[in-house]
């Protein structure tokens, strides 16, 4: 992590300010994924959620975050990798998607990556577990690959809204 931190510091500051973007990376089932840090509202440990009826399978329920009802989605389920056995060590990342905040349940938060634009590669068509529509790009580091997710495409928000409304 320190090495990553050092490397990111080595990037030219000026250029970086123009072109560099920061990504919050996290792991689900040993795969590393990243989201733009600017969409991140908050990172917190797992707490039990309130389950909603008739909700999609990947939706773990809703959470009251300082008065806001926030739906929580299980990334593992959404990635068709089964259901996460959530513990206090699991992490919920609160993201702003459009006008709405959602929480995604991940195994752990890995790093904050400072990445220049040229480092971001377009997503290949068929070599990840995720639908190509969800992937905004790939970051290839020395020994690892970080999948950048397009969160706004990841969940059918209308349906979710409906579910939340019905629950309310």
């Amino acid at each position, binding site marked *: *992590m*320190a090495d990553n*931190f050092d490397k990111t510091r080595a990037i030219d500051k000026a250029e970086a*300010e123009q072109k560099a973007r*920061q990504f*919050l990376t996290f792991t689900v089932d040993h795969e590393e994924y990243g989201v733009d*840090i*600017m969409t*991140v*509202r*908050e*990172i*917190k*440990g797992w707490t039990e959620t309130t389950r909603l009826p008739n909700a999609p399978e990947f939706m773990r329920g809703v959470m009251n975050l300082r008065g806001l009802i926030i739906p929580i989605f299980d990334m593992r389920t959404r990635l068709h990798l089964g259901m996460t056995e959530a513990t*206090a*060590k699991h*992490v919920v990342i609160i993201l702003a998607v459009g006008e709405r905040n959602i929480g995604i349940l991940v195994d752990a*938060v890995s790093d*904050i990556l400072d990445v220049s634009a040229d480092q971001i590669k377009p997503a290949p068509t068929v070599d990840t577990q995720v639908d190509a529509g969800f992937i905004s790009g790939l970051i290839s580091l020395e020994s690892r690959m970080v999948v950048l997710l397009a969160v706004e495409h990841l969940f059918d928000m209308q349906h979710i809204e409906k579910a939340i409304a019905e629950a309310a």
Partner: protein
Amino acid sequence: MLNFMTEAKEDKAALATMHSALGYVEYDLTGHIIGMNQVYLDAMGYRLEEVLGKHQSILIDPVYAASAEYKRSLERQLKGDIVTSEGKRIGKNGKEVWFQVVYAPVFDANKKLKKIAAYLCIAGQIAAIQKSQAVIEFNMEGAVLNANPNFLNALGYTLDEIMGKHHSMFVDPAYRASIEYSEFWAKLNRGEYQAAEYKRIGKGGKEVWIQASYNPILDLSGKPFKVVKYATDTTKQKMQNADHAAQIAAIGKAQAVISFNMDGTVIDANPNFLNALGYTLEEIRGKHHSLFVDPAYRNSVDYKQFWENLNRGEYQAAEYKRIGKGGKEVWIQASYNPIMDLNGKPFKVVKYATDVTQMVVTRIENEMGMNEAVKVLTGVAAGNLTEKMTLDYKGTFADIKKAVNATVDRLYDMVKNIIVAAQSVNSAASEIASGSTDLSQRTEEQASSLEETAASMEEITGTVKQNSSNAANANELSGKANQVASDGGKVVEDAVSAMGSIEKSSQKISDIIGVIDEIAFQTNLLALNAAVEAARAGDAGKGFAVVASEVRSLAGRSASASKEIKTLINESAQQVRTGATLVNQAGDTLKNIVSSVKQVSTIVSEIARASQEQANGIDEINTAITQMDEVTQQNAALVEENTAAAQSMVEQAQSLERLMSFFTLNEQEEGMVAHSNIVAMDAGRKPVASARSAVKSASSVGNKPKPTASHHAAAAHASAKAVPKENANYDKEWKEF
């Protein structure tokens, strides 16, 4: 005695005799004395002149004279009754004399009472008669009225026993039933006096001979009213006469008796004589004595001399040879006794003879037999048992021959039996001696075994004591082990407890690390949030982002460290758990050890107790062995005595055989006896002396067993050498038969 008064026909001499024996007085009807004889005067001390014309009462006791009885007596006399009385008369100067008196009336021709005559028998005489003679009085029926002590003594009765009984109790039952006896009493009843020698039966059947007179006492009418019997016991004399007669008869029965006139002709001969010589009395009566003698002797001077001697009254006695009828030789032992007449001249010869023919014949045979018997018995005395009496004998010597020969035979058998028995005894004694030796050896072996047993017992005692001691030590050690194991258990428990504490501490540490990890996690999240915020802050947030990054780095290191610690703690906890398990196992093992040690301790205690019991048992065994040892020693002593006795017996038996060799038996018997002797000696050849040596070693019980085998061998050898020598001696002795 008074019956003579009634005998009017008695001659004058008798009357005179009576007057000389009895007192007589007569007086007239007025009682005045008109006559008195000299007997009475002498008894009373008067002279006739002094009493003639005096009243008879001067002679009467005044007391009696005044009595009614006297008056009654006088009245009866005057009435003409015969009155008898006994009473005191007073003589001159008051002399008192007792008389028995009979007053008899004397009548004149007209049968008118003329005077009274009194005969007096001085009572002293009667008393004398009473003292010297047996007197008894009967009534006419024969019943006893009275009897004096002499009579009672002679027949052995008391007066009470015979008073009132009939006279027939004194006579022989045969005589009692006879006519003679009836006649006897009939005569007495007729008043007839009887005197003779009578046989009477005393008390208990005793025969008594008496010279007695039965005197009927008549009353005045001449009728007897009682019988007085005076008797003298002549039994002794009678018996003597009978004895003499019997003796003479006996001589006649036993001896040949013949009587001759002085000229030698036969007067008489008894059957013995006749039988001895085979003649009848008729054949020899009147014949001369020379008929019975050898013709040669008959003509000899000796025979003539023989008769001349007899005629001189000389007694002749010797053993004579006489010739019986048909020339039969008869030997007699005879005495010729000349019988003298009153003038001392022989008038006949009585010869008493005993036929000694048999005796003489026997005597000859006796001499022969005696000689042979002497010969045989001398042989026997010299030990020769082969001689016997062989001649023929009659009479006693046939018996003697039989007896002597039987004696020799019996002695022969006896000697033979004794020899055989002595040999048997010798043989048996040898076997006993041999048995004693065996017994001695066995006793020795027993003693040795006992000693070994005692030694073994000593070892066992040592072992048992060691065992007991070891058991005690083991007991102590097991106690200690028990203690150590118990202590170990406690330590294990402490260890387990410590492990538990460690586990708890590890858990706490683990918890703390969890907290640290949590904090690290939260810190990381906070740092991320800070980084997010910094990123949103743009350039303004860049410094902050650096700090957040540092914080994340620290949180990451903290989380990493806590992870390592957690790993280490887990490992430690794991190891502690393993340790606890091991310690628990050690605890279980220790518990098992304690349990085992307790069992060991129990077993050891039992071993100790058993050892003690063993020790006690061994003590008892030792006592028993001591007793056995004593008994064995006693046995040994007895065996020694036994052996000595057996040896002595062998010697005695041999000595007996030597003694018996004195007797001579015939050849065949000798062979048989000699053979059995050799057999007996073979039995005796066994070593006898070794018994003694064996006993000596046996008696040393308790010492180390000595090697006695060689000792034995030596003894056996010695005795084996000794016995054959003895045996040789015997063989030599036996050859002498």
